[in-house]
Protein backbone atom coordinates (compact mmCIF):
# COMPACT_ATOMS: atom_id res chain seq x y z
CA UNK A 1 0.00 0.00 0.00
CA UNK A 2 2.88 2.36 0.79
CA UNK A 3 4.21 1.79 -2.72
CA UNK A 4 0.89 2.72 -4.27
CA UNK A 5 0.60 5.84 -2.12
CA UNK A 6 4.05 6.90 -3.26
CA UNK A 7 3.06 6.24 -6.87
CA UNK A 8 -0.07 8.36 -6.52
CA UNK A 9 1.90 11.11 -4.85
CA UNK A 10 4.42 11.08 -7.68
CA UNK A 11 1.59 11.32 -10.19
CA UNK A 12 0.53 14.59 -8.62
CA UNK A 13 4.01 16.08 -8.22
CA UNK A 14 5.30 15.20 -11.70
CA UNK A 15 2.76 17.35 -13.52
CA UNK A 16 2.06 21.06 -13.15
CA UNK A 17 -1.59 20.89 -12.13
CA UNK A 18 -0.99 21.16 -8.40
CA UNK A 19 0.67 24.54 -8.60
CA UNK A 20 -1.37 25.71 -11.57
CA UNK A 21 -4.37 25.43 -9.22
CA UNK A 22 -2.53 26.50 -6.09
CA UNK A 23 -1.71 29.92 -7.58
CA UNK A 24 -5.34 31.00 -8.06
CA UNK A 25 -6.19 29.41 -4.70
CA UNK A 26 -3.64 31.61 -2.98
CA UNK A 27 -4.72 34.68 -4.93
CA UNK A 28 -8.38 34.18 -4.05
CA UNK A 29 -7.49 33.55 -0.39
CA UNK A 30 -5.24 36.59 -0.19
CA UNK A 31 -7.71 38.77 -2.08
CA UNK A 32 -10.59 37.55 0.08
CA UNK A 33 -8.55 38.23 3.23
CA UNK A 34 -7.61 41.73 2.10
CA UNK A 35 -11.19 42.53 1.15
CA UNK A 36 -12.62 41.12 4.40
CA UNK A 37 -10.13 43.11 6.40
CA UNK A 38 -10.78 46.35 4.51
CA UNK A 39 -14.55 46.01 4.65
CA UNK A 40 -14.53 45.01 8.31
CA UNK A 41 -12.28 47.94 9.15
CA UNK A 42 -14.39 50.47 7.27
CA UNK A 43 -17.64 49.21 8.81
CA UNK A 44 -16.12 49.62 12.25
CA UNK A 45 -15.02 53.14 11.32
CA UNK A 46 -18.55 54.02 10.23
CA UNK A 47 -19.97 52.72 13.51
CA UNK A 48 -17.33 54.61 15.45
CA UNK A 49 -18.52 57.98 14.14
CA UNK A 50 -20.30 60.01 16.78
CA UNK A 51 -23.86 59.82 15.37
CA UNK A 52 -23.65 56.07 14.94
CA UNK A 53 -22.26 55.74 18.40
CA UNK A 54 -25.26 57.56 19.85
CA UNK A 55 -27.59 55.22 17.96
CA UNK A 56 -25.79 52.08 19.05
CA UNK A 57 -25.56 53.29 22.62
CA UNK A 58 -29.32 53.79 22.55
CA UNK A 59 -29.77 50.22 21.27
CA UNK A 60 -27.33 48.88 23.83
CA UNK A 61 -25.03 47.30 21.24
CA UNK A 62 -21.33 47.85 20.66
CA UNK A 63 -20.71 47.50 16.89
CA UNK A 64 -17.35 49.20 17.05
CA UNK A 65 -16.07 46.02 18.70
CA UNK A 66 -17.62 43.72 16.15
CA UNK A 67 -15.16 41.68 14.09
CA UNK A 68 -16.81 42.03 10.71
CA UNK A 69 -13.77 40.75 8.89
CA UNK A 70 -14.53 37.30 10.36
CA UNK A 71 -17.63 37.07 8.20
CA UNK A 72 -15.57 37.42 5.04
CA UNK A 73 -13.32 34.54 6.03
CA UNK A 74 -16.06 31.94 5.63
CA UNK A 75 -16.93 33.32 2.20
CA UNK A 76 -13.29 33.39 1.15
CA UNK A 77 -12.72 29.79 2.18
CA UNK A 78 -15.83 28.69 0.35
CA UNK A 79 -14.70 30.35 -2.86
CA UNK A 80 -11.05 29.30 -2.58
CA UNK A 81 -11.91 25.62 -1.99
CA UNK A 82 -13.29 25.54 -5.52
CA UNK A 83 -9.71 24.91 -6.62
CA UNK A 84 -9.01 21.84 -4.48
CA UNK A 85 -12.44 20.66 -5.62
CA UNK A 86 -11.28 20.88 -9.25
CA UNK A 87 -7.94 19.32 -8.34
CA UNK A 88 -9.79 16.35 -6.86
CA UNK A 89 -12.20 16.10 -9.77
CA UNK A 90 -9.30 15.69 -12.20
CA UNK A 91 -7.68 12.92 -10.15
CA UNK A 92 -9.53 10.12 -11.90
CA UNK A 93 -11.11 11.98 -14.81
CA UNK A 94 -7.65 12.87 -16.13
CA UNK A 95 -6.42 9.32 -15.72
CA UNK A 96 -9.34 8.01 -17.69
CA UNK A 97 -8.81 10.75 -20.29
CA UNK A 98 -5.09 10.08 -20.77
CA UNK A 99 -5.72 6.33 -20.39
CA UNK A 100 -3.05 6.04 -17.71
CA UNK A 101 -5.81 4.37 -15.68
CA UNK A 102 -4.99 1.17 -17.60
CA UNK A 103 -1.42 1.06 -16.28
CA UNK A 104 -2.60 2.19 -12.85
CA UNK A 105 -4.91 -0.79 -12.62
CA UNK A 106 -2.31 -3.15 -14.11
CA UNK A 107 0.25 -2.25 -11.46
CA UNK A 108 -2.02 -2.34 -8.39
CA UNK A 109 -3.02 -5.51 -6.54
CA UNK A 110 -6.63 -4.47 -7.11
CA UNK A 111 -8.68 -1.48 -8.14
CA UNK A 112 -9.71 -1.01 -4.53
CA UNK A 113 -6.04 -0.66 -3.58
CA UNK A 114 -5.46 1.87 -6.34
CA UNK A 115 -8.50 3.92 -5.34
CA UNK A 116 -7.63 3.83 -1.65
CA UNK A 117 -4.10 5.04 -2.34
CA UNK A 118 -5.51 7.85 -4.44
CA UNK A 119 -7.91 8.80 -1.66
CA UNK A 120 -5.10 9.12 0.86
CA UNK A 121 -2.94 11.22 -1.42
CA UNK A 122 -5.80 13.57 -2.27
CA UNK A 123 -6.69 13.93 1.40
CA UNK A 124 -3.11 15.10 1.86
CA UNK A 125 -3.47 17.57 -0.99
CA UNK A 126 -6.75 18.78 0.49
CA UNK A 127 -4.84 19.51 3.69
CA UNK A 128 -2.11 21.38 1.83
CA UNK A 129 -4.63 23.50 -0.06
CA UNK A 130 -6.59 24.11 3.14
CA UNK A 131 -3.50 25.33 5.00
CA UNK A 132 -2.58 27.58 2.09
CA UNK A 133 -6.09 29.02 2.04
CA UNK A 134 -6.28 29.85 5.75
CA UNK A 135 -2.69 31.08 5.74
CA UNK A 136 -3.17 33.54 2.92
CA UNK A 137 -6.63 34.62 4.08
CA UNK A 138 -5.10 35.40 7.48
CA UNK A 139 -2.27 37.27 5.81
CA UNK A 140 -4.75 39.41 3.92
CA UNK A 141 -6.61 40.27 7.10
CA UNK A 142 -3.47 40.95 9.10
CA UNK A 143 -2.32 43.37 6.41
CA UNK A 144 -5.53 45.39 6.36
CA UNK A 145 -7.02 45.47 9.83
CA UNK A 146 -5.91 46.21 13.36
CA UNK A 147 -5.68 43.49 15.95
CA UNK A 148 -9.13 44.31 17.36
CA UNK A 149 -10.65 42.92 14.17
CA UNK A 150 -8.92 39.58 14.45
CA UNK A 151 -9.93 36.44 16.28
CA UNK A 152 -7.77 35.25 19.15
CA UNK A 153 -5.46 32.24 18.92
CA UNK A 154 -8.27 29.81 19.76
CA UNK A 155 -10.40 31.40 17.07
CA UNK A 156 -7.64 31.03 14.49
CA UNK A 157 -7.16 27.40 15.49
CA UNK A 158 -10.85 26.75 15.02
CA UNK A 159 -10.89 28.51 11.66
CA UNK A 160 -7.82 26.57 10.54
CA UNK A 161 -9.50 23.32 11.53
CA UNK A 162 -12.71 23.97 9.60
CA UNK A 163 -10.84 25.42 6.63
CA UNK A 164 -8.66 22.32 6.31
CA UNK A 165 -11.67 20.06 6.86
CA UNK A 166 -13.63 21.92 4.25
CA UNK A 167 -10.76 21.72 1.79
CA UNK A 168 -10.27 17.98 2.34
CA UNK A 169 -13.98 17.31 1.97
CA UNK A 170 -14.22 19.42 -1.18
CA UNK A 171 -11.23 17.58 -2.68
CA UNK A 172 -12.81 14.24 -1.86
CA UNK A 173 -16.14 15.35 -3.29
CA UNK A 174 -14.24 16.19 -6.47
CA UNK A 175 -12.46 12.83 -6.56
CA UNK A 176 -15.77 11.00 -6.20
CA UNK A 177 -17.55 13.02 -8.84
CA UNK A 178 -14.59 12.75 -11.21
CA UNK A 179 -14.82 8.97 -10.90
CA UNK A 180 -18.56 9.08 -11.43
CA UNK A 181 -18.23 11.34 -14.48
CA UNK A 182 -14.77 10.53 -15.82
CA UNK A 183 -14.62 13.36 -18.32
CA UNK A 184 -12.23 16.14 -17.35
CA UNK A 185 -13.90 19.09 -19.05
CA UNK A 186 -17.39 17.84 -18.29
CA UNK A 187 -16.92 17.28 -14.59
CA UNK A 188 -15.04 20.56 -14.03
CA UNK A 189 -17.69 22.62 -15.82
CA UNK A 190 -20.44 20.80 -13.97
CA UNK A 191 -18.85 21.38 -10.55
CA UNK A 192 -18.12 25.06 -11.17
CA UNK A 193 -21.62 25.62 -12.51
CA UNK A 194 -23.16 23.80 -9.59
CA UNK A 195 -21.24 25.45 -6.78
CA UNK A 196 -21.25 28.96 -8.22
CA UNK A 197 -24.57 29.16 -10.05
CA UNK A 198 -26.96 26.24 -9.85
CA UNK A 199 -27.09 25.82 -6.09
CA UNK A 200 -27.36 29.56 -5.49
CA UNK A 201 -30.32 29.66 -7.85
CA UNK A 202 -31.75 26.64 -6.07
CA UNK A 203 -31.34 28.31 -2.68
CA UNK A 204 -33.05 31.42 -3.96
CA UNK A 205 -35.85 29.31 -5.41
CA UNK A 206 -36.34 27.50 -2.09
CA UNK A 207 -36.48 30.77 -0.19
CA UNK A 208 -38.97 32.25 -2.64
CA UNK A 209 -41.09 29.12 -2.47
CA UNK A 210 -41.22 29.57 1.29
CA UNK A 211 -39.48 26.30 2.12
CA UNK A 212 -38.06 26.50 5.67
CA UNK A 213 -34.68 28.21 5.67
CA UNK A 214 -32.94 25.15 7.15
CA UNK A 215 -33.43 23.19 3.89
CA UNK A 216 -30.58 25.19 2.38
CA UNK A 217 -28.20 23.82 4.98
CA UNK A 218 -28.72 20.32 3.66
CA UNK A 219 -27.58 21.08 0.11
CA UNK A 220 -23.93 20.37 -0.79
CA UNK A 221 -22.72 23.95 -0.97
CA UNK A 222 -25.10 25.07 1.77
CA UNK A 223 -23.60 22.52 4.14
CA UNK A 224 -19.93 22.95 3.27
CA UNK A 225 -20.36 26.70 3.40
CA UNK A 226 -22.09 26.26 6.75
CA UNK A 227 -19.10 24.34 8.08
CA UNK A 228 -16.86 27.39 7.89
CA UNK A 229 -19.56 30.11 7.97
CA UNK A 230 -21.04 28.86 11.25
CA UNK A 231 -17.66 28.97 12.94
CA UNK A 232 -17.10 32.51 11.66
CA UNK A 233 -20.50 33.60 13.01
CA UNK A 234 -19.92 31.82 16.33
CA UNK A 235 -16.60 33.58 16.77
CA UNK A 236 -18.20 36.87 15.84
CA UNK A 237 -21.01 36.45 18.33
CA UNK A 238 -18.67 35.36 21.10
CA UNK A 239 -17.15 38.83 21.26
CA UNK A 240 -20.05 40.89 19.99
CA UNK A 241 -22.05 41.48 23.13
CA UNK A 242 -25.72 42.01 22.35
CA UNK A 243 -26.82 41.31 18.77
CA UNK A 244 -30.48 41.51 17.83
CA UNK A 245 -32.09 38.28 16.54
CA UNK A 246 -32.73 39.73 13.11
CA UNK A 247 -29.10 40.78 13.03
CA UNK A 248 -27.90 37.21 13.64
CA UNK A 249 -29.95 36.03 10.69
CA UNK A 250 -28.25 38.49 8.37
CA UNK A 251 -24.84 37.79 9.86
CA UNK A 252 -25.29 34.12 8.99
CA UNK A 253 -26.39 34.94 5.45
CA UNK A 254 -23.41 37.26 4.97
CA UNK A 255 -20.99 34.66 6.35
CA UNK A 256 -22.40 32.03 3.99
CA UNK A 257 -24.09 30.06 6.76
CA UNK A 258 -27.67 31.11 6.04
CA UNK A 259 -29.95 28.25 6.98
CA UNK A 260 -26.99 26.07 7.91
CA UNK A 261 -26.77 23.87 10.97
CA UNK A 262 -24.04 24.13 13.59
CA UNK A 263 -20.57 23.83 12.06
CA UNK A 264 -20.01 20.19 13.02
CA UNK A 265 -23.46 19.14 11.87
CA UNK A 266 -22.93 21.00 8.59
CA UNK A 267 -19.65 19.15 8.25
CA UNK A 268 -21.37 15.81 8.79
CA UNK A 269 -24.06 16.68 6.25
CA UNK A 270 -21.44 17.53 3.64
CA UNK A 271 -19.55 14.38 4.60
CA UNK A 272 -22.68 12.45 3.66
CA UNK A 273 -22.65 14.14 0.25
CA UNK A 274 -18.98 13.28 -0.12
CA UNK A 275 -19.68 9.69 0.83
CA UNK A 276 -22.47 9.51 -1.75
CA UNK A 277 -20.27 10.95 -4.52
CA UNK A 278 -17.31 8.84 -3.49
CA UNK A 279 -19.37 5.68 -3.13
CA UNK A 280 -20.89 6.19 -6.57
CA UNK A 281 -17.52 6.93 -8.13
CA UNK A 282 -15.90 4.02 -6.34
CA UNK A 283 -18.59 1.60 -7.51
CA UNK A 284 -18.30 2.89 -11.06
CA UNK A 285 -14.50 2.61 -11.16
CA UNK A 286 -14.35 -0.86 -9.66
CA UNK A 287 -16.94 -2.17 -12.14
CA UNK A 288 -16.03 -0.27 -15.28
CA UNK A 289 -14.65 -2.13 -18.29
CA UNK A 290 -11.44 -0.40 -19.29
CA UNK A 291 -11.53 -0.87 -23.07
Amino acid sequence: MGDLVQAELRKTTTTTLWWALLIPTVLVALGGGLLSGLLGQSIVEVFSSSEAEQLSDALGVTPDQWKFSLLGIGRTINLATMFPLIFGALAIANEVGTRTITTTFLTAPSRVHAMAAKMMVYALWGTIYGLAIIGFTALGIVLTSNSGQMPDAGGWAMLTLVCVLSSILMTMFGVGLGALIPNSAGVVVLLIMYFLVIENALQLGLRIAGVPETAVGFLPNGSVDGLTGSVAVDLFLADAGVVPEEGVYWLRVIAGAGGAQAWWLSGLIFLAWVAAAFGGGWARMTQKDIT
Partner: protein
Amino acid sequence: MHDGSGLIAVQNLTKQFGSVTAVQNLSFTVSPGSVTGFLGPNGAGKTTTLRMLLGLVKPTSGTATINGRPFHQLGRPGRVVGAVLEAQGFHPNRTARNHLRVYASAIGVPDAQADQVLGLVGLSTAAGRNVGGFSLGMKQRMAVATALLGDPQVLVLDEPANGLDPEGIAWLRNFLQSFARMGRTVLISSHLLAEVEQTVDQVVIVSRGQTMYYGPLEHLRQQQQRRVFVQPSDVGALATALREAGVQALEQLPDGRLAVSGMDAKQVADAALRAGVSVYGIQEEQADLEQIFFRLTSGQFAGHAPAPYQQQQGGWA
Protein backbone atom coordinates in the same frame (compact mmCIF):
# COMPACT_ATOMS: atom_id res chain seq x y z
CA MET B 1 -0.72 -16.79 -4.42
CA HIS B 2 0.05 -17.71 -8.02
CA ASP B 3 1.93 -20.88 -8.92
CA GLY B 4 4.79 -19.25 -10.87
CA SER B 5 4.23 -21.61 -13.79
CA GLY B 6 4.14 -18.88 -16.42
CA LEU B 7 1.05 -20.50 -17.90
CA ILE B 8 -1.77 -18.51 -19.45
CA ALA B 9 -5.09 -20.32 -19.59
CA VAL B 10 -8.20 -19.01 -21.28
CA GLN B 11 -11.28 -21.15 -20.79
CA ASN B 12 -14.67 -20.76 -22.42
CA LEU B 13 -14.23 -17.02 -22.36
CA THR B 14 -17.20 -14.97 -23.55
CA LYS B 15 -17.73 -11.23 -23.61
CA GLN B 16 -20.91 -9.51 -24.64
CA PHE B 17 -20.95 -5.73 -25.15
CA GLY B 18 -24.67 -5.12 -25.28
CA SER B 19 -25.77 -6.88 -28.45
CA VAL B 20 -22.21 -7.30 -29.75
CA THR B 21 -20.54 -10.62 -28.97
CA ALA B 22 -16.88 -9.61 -28.90
CA VAL B 23 -15.54 -12.97 -27.73
CA GLN B 24 -17.40 -16.24 -27.88
CA ASN B 25 -16.46 -19.33 -25.91
CA LEU B 26 -12.75 -18.90 -26.51
CA SER B 27 -10.28 -21.43 -25.08
CA PHE B 28 -6.53 -21.75 -25.41
CA THR B 29 -3.42 -22.03 -23.28
CA VAL B 30 -0.04 -20.40 -23.66
CA SER B 31 3.04 -22.11 -22.32
CA PRO B 32 6.27 -20.55 -21.14
CA GLY B 33 9.37 -20.85 -23.25
CA SER B 34 7.71 -19.89 -26.52
CA VAL B 35 6.24 -16.92 -28.28
CA THR B 36 2.57 -17.37 -29.03
CA GLY B 37 0.89 -15.32 -31.70
CA PHE B 38 -2.72 -14.30 -31.17
CA LEU B 39 -4.06 -13.66 -34.63
CA GLY B 40 -7.29 -12.52 -36.11
CA PRO B 41 -8.73 -9.85 -38.38
CA ASN B 42 -9.97 -6.48 -37.13
CA GLY B 43 -12.78 -6.83 -34.64
CA ALA B 44 -12.06 -10.51 -34.02
CA GLY B 45 -11.92 -9.94 -30.26
CA LYS B 46 -8.16 -9.98 -29.65
CA THR B 47 -7.97 -6.79 -27.62
CA THR B 48 -11.05 -7.73 -25.63
CA THR B 49 -9.58 -11.14 -24.81
CA LEU B 50 -6.24 -9.69 -23.69
CA ARG B 51 -8.01 -7.08 -21.55
CA MET B 52 -10.09 -9.78 -19.91
CA LEU B 53 -6.90 -11.71 -19.19
CA LEU B 54 -5.50 -8.56 -17.56
CA GLY B 55 -8.54 -7.92 -15.42
CA LEU B 56 -9.45 -4.72 -17.25
CA VAL B 57 -12.63 -6.08 -18.78
CA LYS B 58 -15.01 -8.31 -16.88
CA PRO B 59 -15.89 -11.50 -18.78
CA THR B 60 -19.55 -12.28 -19.32
CA SER B 61 -18.62 -15.90 -18.64
CA GLY B 62 -15.59 -18.13 -18.58
CA THR B 63 -12.20 -17.58 -16.99
CA ALA B 64 -8.79 -16.29 -17.91
CA THR B 65 -5.84 -17.00 -15.65
CA ILE B 66 -2.15 -16.26 -15.43
CA ASN B 67 -0.08 -18.58 -13.28
CA GLY B 68 -3.27 -20.33 -12.31
CA ARG B 69 -4.92 -17.20 -10.92
CA PRO B 70 -7.22 -14.51 -12.20
CA PHE B 71 -5.39 -11.20 -12.53
CA HIS B 72 -6.69 -9.61 -9.35
CA GLN B 73 -5.40 -12.53 -7.27
CA LEU B 74 -1.81 -12.21 -8.45
CA GLY B 75 -0.80 -10.14 -5.44
CA ARG B 76 1.81 -7.96 -7.08
CA PRO B 77 0.67 -8.16 -10.69
CA GLY B 78 3.35 -5.79 -12.00
CA ARG B 79 6.02 -8.32 -11.09
CA VAL B 80 4.22 -11.21 -12.77
CA VAL B 81 2.85 -9.80 -15.99
CA GLY B 82 3.80 -6.85 -18.16
CA ALA B 83 1.40 -5.57 -20.79
CA VAL B 84 1.67 -3.43 -23.90
CA LEU B 85 -1.90 -2.57 -24.81
CA GLU B 86 -1.70 0.58 -26.87
CA ALA B 87 0.68 3.39 -27.66
CA GLN B 88 -1.35 5.49 -25.24
CA GLY B 89 -1.66 5.74 -21.51
CA PHE B 90 0.73 8.60 -20.90
CA HIS B 91 0.16 11.97 -19.35
CA PRO B 92 1.31 14.29 -22.14
CA ASN B 93 3.06 16.66 -19.73
CA ARG B 94 4.92 14.05 -17.72
CA THR B 95 8.46 13.16 -18.72
CA ALA B 96 9.34 9.65 -19.82
CA ARG B 97 11.49 9.08 -16.75
CA ASN B 98 8.85 10.40 -14.38
CA HIS B 99 6.17 8.24 -16.00
CA LEU B 100 8.31 5.18 -15.38
CA ARG B 101 9.17 6.25 -11.85
CA VAL B 102 5.50 6.60 -11.00
CA TYR B 103 4.88 3.01 -11.99
CA ALA B 104 8.20 1.78 -10.62
CA SER B 105 7.00 2.82 -7.18
CA ALA B 106 3.55 1.30 -7.79
CA ILE B 107 5.18 -2.01 -8.70
CA GLY B 108 7.69 -1.65 -5.89
CA VAL B 109 10.95 -1.71 -7.85
CA PRO B 110 13.85 0.74 -7.40
CA ASP B 111 13.87 3.99 -9.40
CA ALA B 112 17.01 2.85 -11.20
CA GLN B 113 14.80 0.37 -13.03
CA ALA B 114 13.20 3.30 -14.88
CA ASP B 115 16.47 4.31 -16.53
CA GLN B 116 17.30 0.69 -17.15
CA VAL B 117 14.17 -0.01 -19.20
CA LEU B 118 14.55 3.31 -21.01
CA GLY B 119 17.97 2.15 -22.11
CA LEU B 120 16.57 -1.21 -23.10
CA VAL B 121 14.06 0.32 -25.53
CA GLY B 122 16.51 2.91 -26.79
CA LEU B 123 14.91 6.00 -25.28
CA SER B 124 17.66 7.05 -22.86
CA THR B 125 18.28 10.32 -24.64
CA ALA B 126 14.59 11.23 -24.47
CA ALA B 127 14.22 10.43 -20.76
CA GLY B 128 13.72 14.06 -19.75
CA ARG B 129 11.23 14.89 -22.49
CA ASN B 130 7.47 15.04 -22.06
CA VAL B 131 5.83 11.97 -23.54
CA GLY B 132 3.21 14.17 -25.21
CA GLY B 133 5.85 15.18 -27.73
CA PHE B 134 6.84 11.63 -28.61
CA SER B 135 6.21 10.05 -32.00
CA LEU B 136 3.92 7.03 -32.27
CA GLY B 137 6.87 4.65 -32.40
CA MET B 138 8.50 6.31 -29.39
CA LYS B 139 5.26 5.97 -27.44
CA GLN B 140 5.10 2.31 -28.43
CA ARG B 141 8.63 1.90 -27.09
CA MET B 142 7.54 3.66 -23.90
CA ALA B 143 4.68 1.18 -23.58
CA VAL B 144 7.17 -1.67 -23.90
CA ALA B 145 9.43 -0.01 -21.32
CA THR B 146 6.51 0.29 -18.90
CA ALA B 147 5.66 -3.37 -19.40
CA LEU B 148 9.22 -4.39 -18.57
CA LEU B 149 9.51 -2.32 -15.38
CA GLY B 150 8.65 -5.12 -12.99
CA ASP B 151 10.88 -7.68 -14.78
CA PRO B 152 7.78 -9.80 -15.37
CA GLN B 153 7.57 -13.49 -16.10
CA VAL B 154 4.76 -13.08 -18.60
CA LEU B 155 4.49 -10.50 -21.39
CA VAL B 156 1.23 -9.70 -23.13
CA LEU B 157 1.43 -7.42 -26.15
CA ASP B 158 -1.43 -6.09 -28.25
CA GLU B 159 -0.22 -5.20 -31.74
CA PRO B 160 3.10 -3.89 -30.43
CA ALA B 161 4.59 -3.42 -33.90
CA ASN B 162 2.19 -0.54 -34.61
CA GLY B 163 4.23 2.51 -35.48
CA LEU B 164 7.60 0.85 -34.94
CA ASP B 165 10.28 1.41 -37.56
CA PRO B 166 12.00 -1.63 -39.13
CA GLU B 167 14.79 -1.36 -36.62
CA GLY B 168 12.29 -1.28 -33.76
CA ILE B 169 10.44 -4.28 -35.15
CA ALA B 170 13.67 -6.24 -35.49
CA TRP B 171 14.67 -5.28 -31.97
CA LEU B 172 11.28 -6.32 -30.59
CA ARG B 173 11.42 -9.62 -32.45
CA ASN B 174 14.83 -10.49 -31.04
CA PHE B 175 13.89 -9.27 -27.62
CA LEU B 176 10.72 -11.37 -27.45
CA GLN B 177 12.49 -14.47 -28.69
CA SER B 178 15.29 -14.22 -26.16
CA PHE B 179 12.74 -13.36 -23.48
CA ALA B 180 10.89 -16.59 -24.30
CA ARG B 181 14.13 -18.55 -24.45
CA MET B 182 14.73 -17.62 -20.82
CA GLY B 183 11.69 -19.75 -20.08
CA ARG B 184 9.22 -16.89 -19.90
CA THR B 185 5.88 -16.50 -21.58
CA VAL B 186 5.03 -14.20 -24.48
CA LEU B 187 1.58 -13.66 -25.97
CA ILE B 188 1.51 -11.22 -28.85
CA SER B 189 -1.50 -10.25 -30.91
CA SER B 190 -1.56 -9.10 -34.50
CA HIS B 191 -3.97 -8.85 -37.38
CA LEU B 192 -1.14 -9.68 -39.78
CA LEU B 193 0.28 -13.16 -39.80
CA ALA B 194 3.24 -12.01 -41.89
CA GLU B 195 4.13 -9.47 -39.22
CA VAL B 196 4.68 -12.07 -36.53
CA GLU B 197 5.43 -15.13 -38.65
CA GLN B 198 9.13 -14.91 -37.94
CA THR B 199 8.64 -14.28 -34.25
CA VAL B 200 6.10 -16.81 -33.09
CA ASP B 201 6.28 -20.54 -32.49
CA GLN B 202 2.65 -21.14 -31.62
CA VAL B 203 -0.45 -19.47 -32.95
CA VAL B 204 -4.00 -18.97 -31.80
CA ILE B 205 -6.14 -17.79 -34.69
CA VAL B 206 -9.48 -16.22 -33.88
CA SER B 207 -12.26 -14.90 -36.02
CA ARG B 208 -15.58 -13.46 -34.94
CA GLY B 209 -14.71 -14.14 -31.35
CA GLN B 210 -14.08 -17.85 -31.86
CA THR B 211 -10.94 -19.97 -32.08
CA MET B 212 -10.25 -21.13 -35.64
CA TYR B 213 -6.86 -22.74 -35.08
CA TYR B 214 -4.65 -23.30 -32.11
CA GLY B 215 -1.28 -25.03 -32.25
CA PRO B 216 2.27 -24.83 -33.60
CA LEU B 217 2.81 -22.63 -36.64
CA GLU B 218 4.69 -25.56 -38.24
CA HIS B 219 1.56 -27.74 -38.31
CA LEU B 220 -0.34 -24.94 -39.97
CA ARG B 221 2.34 -24.73 -42.65
CA GLN B 222 2.16 -28.45 -43.27
CA GLN B 223 -1.57 -28.29 -43.83
CA GLN B 224 -0.90 -26.37 -46.99
CA GLN B 225 -0.39 -28.69 -49.98
CA ARG B 226 3.09 -28.16 -51.31
CA ARG B 227 3.81 -27.70 -54.95
CA VAL B 228 7.02 -28.25 -56.88
CA PHE B 229 7.83 -26.17 -59.95
CA VAL B 230 10.06 -27.92 -62.42
CA GLN B 231 11.54 -26.85 -65.75
CA PRO B 232 12.22 -30.03 -67.77
CA SER B 233 13.81 -30.45 -71.20
CA ASP B 234 10.69 -32.36 -72.32
CA VAL B 235 7.45 -31.38 -70.62
CA GLY B 236 5.37 -34.14 -72.22
CA ALA B 237 7.76 -36.92 -71.23
CA LEU B 238 8.03 -35.78 -67.65
CA ALA B 239 4.25 -35.36 -67.37
CA THR B 240 3.70 -38.91 -68.58
CA ALA B 241 6.33 -40.25 -66.17
CA LEU B 242 4.79 -38.37 -63.24
CA ARG B 243 1.29 -39.58 -64.05
CA GLU B 244 2.60 -43.09 -64.11
CA ALA B 245 4.13 -42.45 -60.71
CA GLY B 246 0.65 -41.60 -59.45
CA VAL B 247 0.61 -37.81 -59.55
CA GLN B 248 -2.89 -36.52 -60.24
CA ALA B 249 -2.52 -32.77 -60.01
CA LEU B 250 -0.29 -31.50 -62.77
CA GLU B 251 -0.43 -28.09 -64.27
CA GLN B 252 1.51 -26.61 -67.11
CA LEU B 253 2.39 -23.00 -66.50
CA PRO B 254 2.59 -20.42 -69.31
CA ASP B 255 6.35 -20.09 -68.83
CA GLY B 256 6.82 -23.76 -69.74
CA ARG B 257 7.22 -25.10 -66.26
CA LEU B 258 5.21 -27.88 -64.64
CA ALA B 259 3.56 -27.42 -61.28
CA VAL B 260 3.46 -30.73 -59.43
CA SER B 261 1.40 -31.39 -56.30
CA GLY B 262 1.73 -34.35 -53.95
CA MET B 263 5.48 -34.89 -54.34
CA ASP B 264 8.51 -33.17 -53.02
CA ALA B 265 11.35 -31.83 -55.16
CA LYS B 266 13.52 -34.89 -54.66
CA GLN B 267 10.84 -37.30 -55.88
CA VAL B 268 10.18 -35.18 -58.95
CA ALA B 269 13.87 -35.05 -59.81
CA ASP B 270 14.19 -38.82 -59.41
CA ALA B 271 11.19 -39.35 -61.69
CA ALA B 272 12.78 -37.07 -64.29
CA LEU B 273 16.03 -39.02 -64.16
CA ARG B 274 14.20 -42.30 -64.63
CA ALA B 275 12.35 -40.82 -67.63
CA GLY B 276 15.62 -39.53 -69.07
CA VAL B 277 14.46 -35.93 -68.96
CA SER B 278 16.89 -33.16 -68.02
CA VAL B 279 15.88 -30.78 -65.28
CA TYR B 280 16.95 -27.16 -65.82
CA GLY B 281 15.39 -25.77 -62.70
CA ILE B 282 13.37 -26.98 -59.76
CA GLN B 283 11.94 -25.25 -56.73
CA GLU B 284 9.52 -25.99 -53.92
CA GLU B 285 6.79 -23.49 -53.25
CA GLN B 286 6.87 -21.91 -49.81
CA ALA B 287 3.69 -22.58 -47.89
CA ASP B 288 1.62 -19.45 -48.19
CA LEU B 289 0.53 -18.92 -44.63
CA GLU B 290 -1.23 -15.71 -45.40
CA GLN B 291 -3.63 -17.66 -47.62
CA ILE B 292 -4.33 -20.18 -44.89
CA PHE B 293 -4.92 -17.29 -42.55
CA PHE B 294 -7.38 -15.74 -45.01
CA ARG B 295 -9.23 -19.01 -45.41
CA LEU B 296 -9.53 -19.42 -41.64
CA THR B 297 -10.66 -15.91 -40.92
CA SER B 298 -12.36 -14.45 -43.97
CA GLY B 299 -15.83 -13.07 -43.86
CA GLN B 300 -16.18 -10.60 -41.08
CA PHE B 301 -16.22 -6.98 -42.15
CA ALA B 302 -15.00 -7.99 -45.62
CA GLY B 303 -14.43 -4.81 -47.55
CA HIS B 304 -15.19 -4.23 -51.20
CA ALA B 305 -13.22 -2.46 -53.85
CA PRO B 306 -14.66 0.92 -54.81
CA ALA B 307 -17.39 0.35 -57.41
CA PRO B 308 -15.87 2.00 -60.51
CA TYR B 309 -12.71 -0.06 -60.37
CA GLN B 310 -13.82 -3.52 -59.38
CA GLN B 311 -10.55 -5.24 -60.03
CA GLN B 312 -9.68 -6.37 -56.57
CA GLN B 313 -11.42 -8.61 -54.16
CA GLY B 314 -11.48 -8.24 -50.45
CA GLY B 315 -10.48 -5.49 -48.10
CA TRP B 316 -9.05 -6.01 -44.71
CA ALA B 317 -10.97 -9.02 -43.61
